């Protein structure tokens, strides 16, 4: 099933992009589809986008579905929360699956297993069945984790923020694109002659087939790493098969993963919540019709085309000069400003100012998502998947929480809920101040002396001495050396010589 790149070290592989010692690309060339780096980029963002299209396909068709299935506002709200809560658990599992079997198998399996939920949406006939199909379809949003893991495996530290940001952003925009696609598909099917209550059912086959085909493409054309797939690498011994419990424990005991899980809930989580409530907000507050309100809702999601990638690019640009400290400062600043604009959005009275503030708010909140995943690849090497999964899951938890606290029932008017959510964003972003890497520093303090803290020590500490004897840590050693760029320009020059001297010491 997979021929390229699986050949053993007999012939060194030629890459069309410049690569580092781990064969990760150091350049990000969007217009290329060359294997393995750029091809996997396109495969992963397209398949992730398909999952977003499916998960939010019901939203623009609700006016028809709610009459066909006799739904109440409570049923609709519950189904909306269900559509994002399934992925909480699934993202954590996906993280571990990526660490163990690789992102290609993990993501394609999930996409194929959840596509029946999308097909079966066509035969839903009650509020309960509608709830269930939205719940299970939402599991597919866990492909976010495999996308980020995959980009972190294919792209070097200088461009990993950009790669993660573009892949995540272009996938996310499926949530906005679906608000435009589904109504058009529905209208075309109705024109052909189906009645409303049948047309929406047929329409759901489009996202479902898109999902199935993208999974096939991933299986047939994708590669886990620049050196080949996990299965082959594990057979030839180049990659050691890791233990599930160790990987999970190693990830869970790293406090930085938990902090980012919390803060991601207040950029990505907020984005999901807004996806669910913003059309209704404009419809109710400014008396727009649902068609116009839907276009505004779509534009929020479509801003992901450039705002999330911009966050990733900003992370990499800032890291060139200021290293990891720059990445953390940029993340905290951008996400806090997102919170400020959220507060303002709930306070403005006029329609045109509201739309303008919403667009600015979307730019900051989505860029914060991109900036978060500029930091995630450096938290752990061994448990990259688990950390990505935790952070991703935290995003969905944030969405469930904000919808439950601010947008359920009639305790707060929608505008008050939006402003209060903005205050919560500002508060829950403060923990970023607590993130500290001994070798690079944190927001408020510089790195510890390079004599007692180094990239090698940080990453090798994830392996026990017995495992190091067996050589399991060698891949991590390469990553540690490549991550020295996170020291920033002014610092890395001075320590570069000392660092290369240390690196020259023989491997075990």
């Amino acid at each position, binding site marked *: 099933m997979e021929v390229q790149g699986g050949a053993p070290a007999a012939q060194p592989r030629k890459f069309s992009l410049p690569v580092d010692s781990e064969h990760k690309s150091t350049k990000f060339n969007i217009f290329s589809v060359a294997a393995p780096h750029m091809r996997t980029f396109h495969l992963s963002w397209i398949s992730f986008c398909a999952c977003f299209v499916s998960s939010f396909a019901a939203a623009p068709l609700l006016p028809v579905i709610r009459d066909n299935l006799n739904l109440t506002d409570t049923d609709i709200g519950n189904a909306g929360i269900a559509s994002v809560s399934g992925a909480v658990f699934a993202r954590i599992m996906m993280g571990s699956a990526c660490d163990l079997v690789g992102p290609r198998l993990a993501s394609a399996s999930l996409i194929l297993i959840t596509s029946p939920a999308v097909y079966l949406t066509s035969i839903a006939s009650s509020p309960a069945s509608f709830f269930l199909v939205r719940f299970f379809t939402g599991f597919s949003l866990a492909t976010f984790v495999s996308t980020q893991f995959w980009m972190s495996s294919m792209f070097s530290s200088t461009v990993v923020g950009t790669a993660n940001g573009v892949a995540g952003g272009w996938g996310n925009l499926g949530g906005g694109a679906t608000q435009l696609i589904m109504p058009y598909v529905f209208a075309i099917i109705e024109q052909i002659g189906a009645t409303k209550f049948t047309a929406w059912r047929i329409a759901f086959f489009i996202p479902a087939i898109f999902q199935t085909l993208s999974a096939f493409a991933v299986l047939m054309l994708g590669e886990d790493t620049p050196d080949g797939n996990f299965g082959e690498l594990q*057979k030839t011994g180049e990659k050691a098969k890791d233990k599930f419990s160790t990987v999970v424990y190693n990830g869970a005991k790293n406090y930085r993963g938990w902090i980012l899980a919390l803060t991601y809930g207040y950029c990505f989580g907020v984005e999901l919540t807004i996806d669910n409530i913003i059309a209704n907000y404009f419809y109710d507050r400014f008396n727009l019709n649902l068609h116009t309100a839907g276009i505004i809702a779509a534009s929020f999601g479509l801003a992901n085309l450039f705002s999330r990638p911009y966050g990733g690019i900003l992370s990499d640009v800032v890291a060139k000069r200021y290293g990891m400290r720059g990445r953390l400062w940029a993340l905290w600043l951008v996400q806090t400003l997102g919170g400020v604009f959220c507060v303002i959005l709930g306070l403005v009275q006029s329609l045109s100012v509201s739309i303008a503030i919403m667009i600015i708010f979307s730019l900051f909140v989505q860029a914060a998502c991109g900036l978060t995943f500029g930091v995630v690849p450096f938290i752990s090497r061994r448990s990259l998947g688990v950390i990505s999964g935790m952070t991703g899951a935290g995003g969905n938890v944030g969405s469930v929480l904000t919808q439950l606290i601010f947008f359920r029932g009639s305790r707060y008017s929608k505008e008050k809920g939006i402003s209060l959510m903005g205050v919560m964003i500002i508060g829950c972003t403060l923990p970023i101040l607590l993130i500290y890497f001994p070798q690079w520093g944190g927001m408020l303090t510089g790195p510890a002396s390079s004599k007692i803290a180094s990239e090698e020590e940080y990453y090798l500490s994830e392996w026990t001495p017995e495992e190091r004897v067996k050589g399991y840590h060698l891949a991590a050693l390469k990553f540690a050396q490549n991550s020295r760029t996170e020291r920033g320009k002014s610092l890395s020059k001075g320590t570069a010589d000392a660092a290369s001297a240390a690196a020259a010491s023989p491997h075990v």
Partner: protein
Amino acid sequence: MEGSINMSANGFLLAALFLFCFLGFSHGHIHFSSLPRSLEVTASPKPGQVLKAGVDKISVTWVLNGTVKSGSDSSYKTVEAKLCYAPVSQVDRAWRKTEDDLSKDKTCQFLIVGKPYNPANKTVQKFEWTVARDIPTGTFFVRAYAFNSAGEEVGYGQTSDNKKGTNLFQIKAITGRHISLDIASVCFSAFSVLSLSGFFLAGKRKTKKAEAPGQ
């Protein structure tokens, strides 16, 4: 799209009426509470009867109410009979909410029939309508609005009482499902899952083949 869902049948008429409302007078906001109950409206479904969408028919009649002052219907130009939600079908459904301001009111979303009105003709007007296939399941009554030449509501009548509690009937919507759709859904779903196991088996066979010569 949303406009076409609710107003496909009477889209042009309602759009024209709306335009009249905006262009004709500076205040287009008619309030339901200001309208006289000047029409006597009946509908064929008996109280509690369940009608099937797309199959059963409703006969609607209207005539000027005998107790109303004669000549008060001189401004009536058209009459529209509409299918309206009973309160029980509006619970927890904000998109069907009743508002006194008729431009915001969402009680009566489906047009049964619209006909011109001739004040000189004092006979009962009767029309038959097959329940459309996009009517949702719910409890309904029938209300008729009388419009003047400017397209504003100037009178109404309904089959139910003022509290909308009596003489209600039910409609059962079509499911929208078809056997062919059901079969297609299940087949595509099974195909997706089976193809995954197919990929796994193919992969295992390939690695076995690759291993065998080496050993």
